[in-house]
Each structure stands twice: as structure tokens, then as C-alpha cells.
């Protein structure tokens, strides 16, 4: 036995944190008994637990990389505790998404907080939002203390904490209080990550709420078409994935202890390329179909007719794909070129079906069904149950790497049209493997560093940990 065991202080704070969770559960079952005291005690204990654990782990130690014992601890090396946490998290997501009635007591516990913010009673999504935000804040503090020697790590963690608490959590609640009809809109959640942004009920919400609603809709479109490409050109996809995004925010904070678990095999990389791009195609088709059917219902009431919409989408797609194939013909491997052409042709064909059949069916399946299947399999099962529930088994960025269509778009932009890269420092690499091991996206960073080549990969989220753990100062993020 080695001595990478938790100290007694760490144990005490772990129990305090767990007792906070227990209080929430107990109070949830006996809501009439504890009421808001239960909420206060539960969240309080969780906070004391995480903060206390953080300081008992890192305070008094010299600053530097804190990876001692990572592969010897059960939680961080797929041991029994990791599996237990994985099962509990997964179970929580399944109940949250599919059996929220079992959370009724817990949800009522959050009523006072919800009423204080939006004036409405709490829903399961409010409970989830509070716990999610709390996780990013608390584990964000832990991350900041762990990496207190690195300003890059600190700043981007301040950033994800800010965007989660203000944009994802507070602003939508306050907007709901000011104008109850506005759709719940987390401004930083950009289509296609926010796959329901252009759903019928959302569009109704935007269009029936005067200039504010219209402004929000325009912002939603611009954030995908204009803001995203510009920022990615300047900074790489990291501006979103590890500075702004909520999924990324959770992965970088609560998920940080699991980054070494990502699969680095060639097989995983091949799977990643297919999956993420096919999911992008799926969300693209279902969104176009849903908007098309929305416009079909009242073809003359909007500025944009259904057919004009399809033609502009088709032209835009051809323009982008054409630009890629022409401008970057020397960068793309043969298989990348042929699959780009094949996939785009299929999409154009489907747009043609829409156009000529004047229905929103994709091969006889109505697009709302494609959209709801997407919501079920990708939005719920993949991003939630697998993406977060499996942190301790598959690593913290499984969703971002294999599933997120936003990451797919940003990745294409980063690989083909961005100033971002990771430079390597001459011959200083000793092939130790820390960079590859701690890459949450499963990039074999060492393979590039030992060949003295810069790293320009679509999947890199620019977390900067490879550069931080490198014992020889070989890697530098640049844009």
C-alpha cells in the first residue's frame, strides 16, 4: 500500500459535503418537516465540504502541479469509488430527465429560492440549474486554488464561473421576472449546442415579444453566423469551450480530476470524427426542418418565406463548404474531402426534398420527430447521462469530444480558419507523456511535441493544461 490516501481533514470535509447531499435528499422526502432550513443546511454543508476539502488539500503546499497519486486513488483511476460516483450521477440524470416526479419533494425545497429570483415556483430544471451553478462555483474555487500559480488557468476559471452564474443562471431568471412571456434564454448557449433555440414555441416567444424578443432572436442568429467565427478566428475555439460554455465550465471544474481518463487511442479519434460531425448534420437537418415547418404554417406572415429560407440555407451551406474545399484543399486529407462532399450532398438532397415536397418530412419522418429524437438521444442521454454521469469512467469531456455539434463547428473553424495553435519549443521535449495523459480531449500532444511540430487540432479546447503540466516548458498556447 502506498500513502496516497486522503488525510483525515480531507475525509472530514468529504463527509461534511456528502452530509449536505444527504440533508437535501432527506429534506426532499420530508419537505413539510425541514422546508427552507433543509435547503439552507444542505447547500451550506455542500459548500463547506468542497471549500474545506480544497484548503485541506492545497493550503500550505508549495505552488505547482498537484497530480501526486492521481493513478493510485480510486476516484481518479476508475476504482470502486469512481464507479459508485458514476452510477449515482447517472441515476440522478435519469431521474431528472425521465422521472422528475420522484424529485417532487426536492423541487419544493427550492421553491423559496426560485420565488425570490423569478417569482415562480421551482421546477426540476431550476433545481438542476442551482446545483449545476453551485458545482461550477465551488469546484471552480478548488481549481483556482489548485492552479494558483497559473494566471491563464485562474482567469479562464473566473470566466466560466462568471458566465455560468450571470448568463446561464441569473439573467434568464431575472428576464422571466421582468417579462414572463420571453423564452428562457441563456445568451451564451449558442445554436447548435442550444438545439431548441429555433423551435416553434421559442420562435413564438421571440416574435411575440416586441423589439426585445426580436433583438434576442437576431442575437441568436448572429451569435452562430458572425460572432462565433470571428472570435474563433482570433482566439481558437477555447474562447467558447473553456472560457464561456456551461458544459465546458462543469468539465473544467467539477470534471478536472477526471481529465486523464480520456481515451487516447487511434480508434477513439476515428470514432470521434464520425460521431461529432454526424451529430452536427443531425441537428442541422432537424433545425432546418423545424423552422421550415414553422414557416410553412403561415407562409406569408414573416419576412422570410419557407422557400426563400430553404434556398438561403442551401446557398449558405454550399458557400461555406465550397470555401473550405477550395481555400483549404491542401490541408484536407483525401478522406476528409470526400466525406465533406458526400455529407454536404446528402444535406442538399434533403433540402431539395423539403423544397419540392413542400412538407417538412425527411424520408417520410416529420422533422419534429427528428428534432425530438435528437432532444432525447443527444440532448438528454448523451450530453447529460453519459456526458456528465460518466465523468469518473470516460473522462470529463466525452460530450464535448464525441457529441457536441457546437464543438464540431468551432473545431472546423479552428482547424481551417484560426490563428490559434500550440507551439512547441525546439528540442526540449523529453517524451514524458504528461501532456497527452492530462489532455481531456484525448489528443496525443506528445506525438506532436516530440516531432517539434505545432499542434493544430480541431478538438483542442485550449484548456492549457498540457502546457501547465509540461516539466520542460515545451508547449505554449498562441493566437
Amino acid at each position: 500500500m502506498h500513502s496516497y490516501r486522503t488525510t483525515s481533514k480531507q475525509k472530514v470535509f468529504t463527509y461534511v459535503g456528502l452530509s449536505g447531499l444527504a440533508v437535501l435528499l432527506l429534506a426532499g422526502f420530508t419537505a413539510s418537516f425541514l422546508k427552507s432550513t433543509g435547503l439552507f443546511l444542505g447547500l451550506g454543508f455542500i459548500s463547506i465540504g468542497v471549500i474545506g476539502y480544497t484548503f485541506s488539500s492545497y493550503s500550505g503546499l508549495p505552488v505547482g502541479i498537484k497530480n501526486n497519486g492521481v493513478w493510485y486513488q480510486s476516484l481518479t483511476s476508475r476504482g470502486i469509488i469512481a464507479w459508485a460516483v458514476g452510477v449515482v450521477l447517472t441515476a440522478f440524470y435519469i431521474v431528472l430527465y425521465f422521472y422528475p416526479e420522484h424529485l417532487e419533494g426536492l423541487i419544493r425545497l427550492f421553491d423559496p429560492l426560485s420565488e425570490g429570483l423569478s417569482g415562480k415556483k421551482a421546477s426540476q430544471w431550476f433545481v438542476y440549474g442551482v446545483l449545476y451553478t453551485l458545482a461550477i462555483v465551488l469546484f471552480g474555487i478548488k481549481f483556482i486554488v489548485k492552479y494558483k500559480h497559473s494566471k491563464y488557468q485562474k482567469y479562464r476559471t473566473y470566466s466560466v464561473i462568471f458566465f455560468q452564474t450571470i448568463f446561464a443562471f441569473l439573467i434568464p431568471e431575472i428576464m422571466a421576472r421582468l417579462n414572463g412571456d420571453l423564452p428562457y434564454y441563456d445568451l451564451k448557449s449558442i445554436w447548435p449546442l442550444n438545439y431548441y433555440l429555433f423551435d416553434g414555441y421559442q420562435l413564438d416567444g421571440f416574435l411575440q415579444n416586441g423589439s426585445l424578443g426580436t433583438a434576442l432572436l437576431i442575437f441568436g442568429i448572429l451569435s452562430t453566423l458572425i460572432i462565433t467565427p470571428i472570435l474563433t478566428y482570433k482566439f481558437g475555439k477555447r474562447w467558447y469551450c473553456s472560457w464561456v460554455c456551461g458544459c465546458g465550465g462543469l468539465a473544467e471544474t467539477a470534471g478536472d480530476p477526471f481529465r486523464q481518463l480520456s481515451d487516447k487511442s487511434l480508434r477513439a479519434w476515428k470514432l470521434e470524427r464520425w460521431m461529432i460531425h454526424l451529430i452536427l448534420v443531425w441537428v442541422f437537418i432537424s433545425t432546418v426542418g423545424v423552422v421550415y415547418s414553422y414557416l410553412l404554417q403561415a407562409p406569408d406572415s414573416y419576412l422570410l418565406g419557407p422557400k426563400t429560407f430553404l434556398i438561403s440555407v442551401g446557398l449558405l451551406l454550399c458557400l461555406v463548404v465550397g470555401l473550405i474545399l477550395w481555400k483549404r484543399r491542401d490541408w484536407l486529407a483525401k478522406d476528409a474531402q470526400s466525406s465533406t462532399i458526400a455529407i454536404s450532398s446528402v444535406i442538399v438532397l434533403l433540402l431539395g426534398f423539403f423544397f419540392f415536397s413542400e412538407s417538412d418530412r425527411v424520408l417520410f419522418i416529420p422533422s419534429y420527430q427528428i428534432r425530438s429524437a435528437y432532444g432525447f438521444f443527444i440532448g438528454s442521454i448523451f450530453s447529460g447521462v453519459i456526458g456528465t454521469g460518466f465523468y469518473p469512467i470516460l473522462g470529463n469531456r466525452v460530450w464535448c469530444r464525441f457529441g457536441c455539434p457546437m464543438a464540431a463547428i468551432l473545431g472546423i473553424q479552428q482547424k481551417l480558419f484560426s490563428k490559434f495553435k500550440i507551439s512547441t519549443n525546439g528540442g526540449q521535449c523529453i517524451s514524458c507523456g504528461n501532456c497527452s495523459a492530462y489532455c481531456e480531449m484525448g489528443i496525443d500532444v506528445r506525438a506532436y511535441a516530440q516531432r517539434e511540430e505545432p499542434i493544430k487540432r480541431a478538438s483542442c479546447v485550449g484548456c492549457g493544461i498540457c502546457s501547465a503540466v509540461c516539466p520542460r516548458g515545451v508547449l505554449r498556447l498562441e493566437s
Partner: protein
Amino acid sequence: MNEKIVIIGNGVAGSTLALQLAEKGNASVTLISDESSYFFSRTALMYVYMGHLTKMQLEPFSRESWDQSPIQRIMARVLSITPEDNELSFQTSEGDVKQLPYDKLVIATGSKPAFYNWKGLEAKGVLGLYHLNDLEKLEKWAPNASACPEAIVIGGGLIGIELSEMLLSRQIKTTLIIRESFFWSSHLPESDAQFVEKHIRSHHINLIKEDELLEITADETGRVSSIQTKKGETISCNLVGITTGVRPNIEFLKTSGLELDKGILVDEYLKTSDPSIYAIGDCAQLRNPLSNRSAIEPVWYTGKLMGETLAQTFSGQPAPYKPGIWYNSAKFFDLEYQTYGKVSPKASQLKSEHHFHWETAEKAMTFAYDKKSEVFLGINTFGIRLNHRIVSGWIETGIPIQEVIDRLEEAHFDPEFSNRHYKQIKHAFIQNH
């Protein structure tokens, strides 16, 4: 028929050569190792014991890629070579002795820890830190602080620091004994050494200077119980790590007839005294090293570079070994160190070399320049990363120190948002100059 090239040793030199030859595909390559089936990063052994990496993660190339490559790998120990017959004999792990003919032989057997003839070396719990086996020994004798409360590390080079950091990661109380009056004085000027010593002490290492190991005492079970030093101190301990440097691993060549000195003597094409035998990596000793570089350089990148150079020669474009400007890097606990060019450890004794040293609590730099011409010679940097290509370029072209100080920011390689100290350094230089 393809030329049959046999490489002894699958460290960075041997493996780099084998992979590059396999890529070119015009020779049959056999790689012999008695240490591991797959090439691993020796410099990263420490991270396995510390729990940062798994053993498998030390391997720079996937096992799949080795298994699919045409390189034939043999796990065996080479006993001797017979240059007259172009043949070597080896012993497999099952104990069979076999012969293997070659057209060209490359010796890349690396180094081994240099143990002197101290009394008590055979005690249980005495080890070096070089071989993959040393990791197993360490895991056996120092699994945790209750099985091994106290450890002694002898020798204050880079490996001594690594071993201390490893032991400390398991809360083992560690004493580091160095012979010199300041740390790593064979490489660092005194101001740098003192800066590093401060950092070492801040990690609660008990640093004893100007003393040496005399003998090791074992208890009735044969396990290390204490050591005696030359100055007459007795220190109790449960583990003795000996890191007093390495030397070329060439014992098996004693009867081969090859010209040997400390290492295997090679010319600039890495050829030994036998025209079909070459030596690369730590075990090779250059007959005519470049100025400012040593004849034997047991570091990672020189092994890699020799492997690459020889691969070029073997594929028909004979290339002399040209390592360029000296550089190296290391990490002392949390303190990163890089060095470029020549910073003599004892500049005070040298007539021609001047040093400018700058430091804060966490960072330091020492610039070396020619006293007369003020040409920049080299730099040591601690806690600040510099761009290899740019600094090497400055040394190669021989720009004046003033220009280096003025342009230092061009070599900036620290992560984004890091504090920049270039103005401070410039200011300090003006005041000092």
C-alpha cells in the same frame, strides 16, 4: 537482399533509429533490449512512482504501432560481440544463448548508475534510479512512509533531485547529501545553485552539503538501517538512493576489441573503430567533440539526435553528428530550469566570462557574456520559459549582451497572462553594468 541492421538497446537513441529506418523501409531492422519490450521515456520514470502517469503512458509510441512495424524486437541480453565474424551472442530470458549475425551493428546501450565501492552496497533498500527495475525496487522498499519513514539520497545532480521529489510525494522524510559546497556545482554558478537550494529547502528536504557516503549499515534482516558519512555522522534510514551520476554501459564490450575509453569511441559519423559497428546515445564517446560540448552527453535529446543522424547516414546520405548550441532543461520540484549555450559554473575563476544574475523569490536568470567583446554566451533561466530557437539563434550569431537584454521579450515562451519581468531585468542590468 536487405541489409541486416541490428541495434542493441531500445532507449531513445536505438528506438529513434529503428523507427526512422523502418519508415524508410530499405533495411531489415532488429532491436534488442533486456529491459522492456516497448520503448519508454526513461526521463519520466519518476512520474509513475508519483502517480502522475501509468507505466504504459511512458511509452511515446503506441504498442500497436510497434507491433505493426516491420522492426523485429528481441527481449534478450547481449553477452558479447565478435566483430571479426559480424556476429553477436545473446541470452534470452529463458536462458538460451543464441548467435545473431549482422551487416551493421549499432550499440545504443545507454548508461548505468555509477556506484563506487562503498561498503554495504548489497544491503536491501539500496538502489539507483535508472532502470525500469529500479522503479520496482523502489515500490518494494519505499511503498509509503510507514514502511519507509526515512530515506537518504546520495549525490546532488538532476536524478538526485528527482528521487527526492519522488520520495517526498509519499511523505518519506528525505535527506540529500552532496559532496560539493553548493548544489550541482558542476553545472551551476553559485548564485543559481543558491537559488535552487532555497527552492529545495522550501520543500522540506534536509540538504547536507560537503559530506560524502562512507558506508552503509544493514540490520539483521539485511535491510539498510543507517549510513556513516565521511565527516563521521551516522544517519538512520530505511532506504539509500545513490545518484552519483551515470557511466556508459559497455562492460560487455571489454573483449570485443573495439576502442573504448569511458564510452565507445566514435567519429563524427558515429562510427566506432570497426567499420560496420556504430555507437549512439549515452554509451558513445565522441573522439572530437565540438567546442563547448562534452564527449559524452547523457541527455535525452542527444540520443534522439544521434539516432536521427545515423538513420540518415544509413539511408545513403552520410551525415556528421551536429548537435549545435548546447541546451538542456530540468525541473527541480516545481522550479523549471532551462539552459542555452555556455554558462560556466565557476565564472569567477574564468578570466573571459562575465555573469549577470537576476532573481526574485520565484524566478531567476543568469546571463553569461564575454568580458571583453560583451558577446552573449549563454543563459540559465529558472521559472521563466524561453524560446529555444530564438535564444539559440542569438548565441549562434553572437549578438552583444545589451541586445539580448533589450530583445529578451522576443524569446518569451511563458503561458499567456504570465507576469513579464523583462523591464525589471533590463533595469537591473543597467544598474549592474
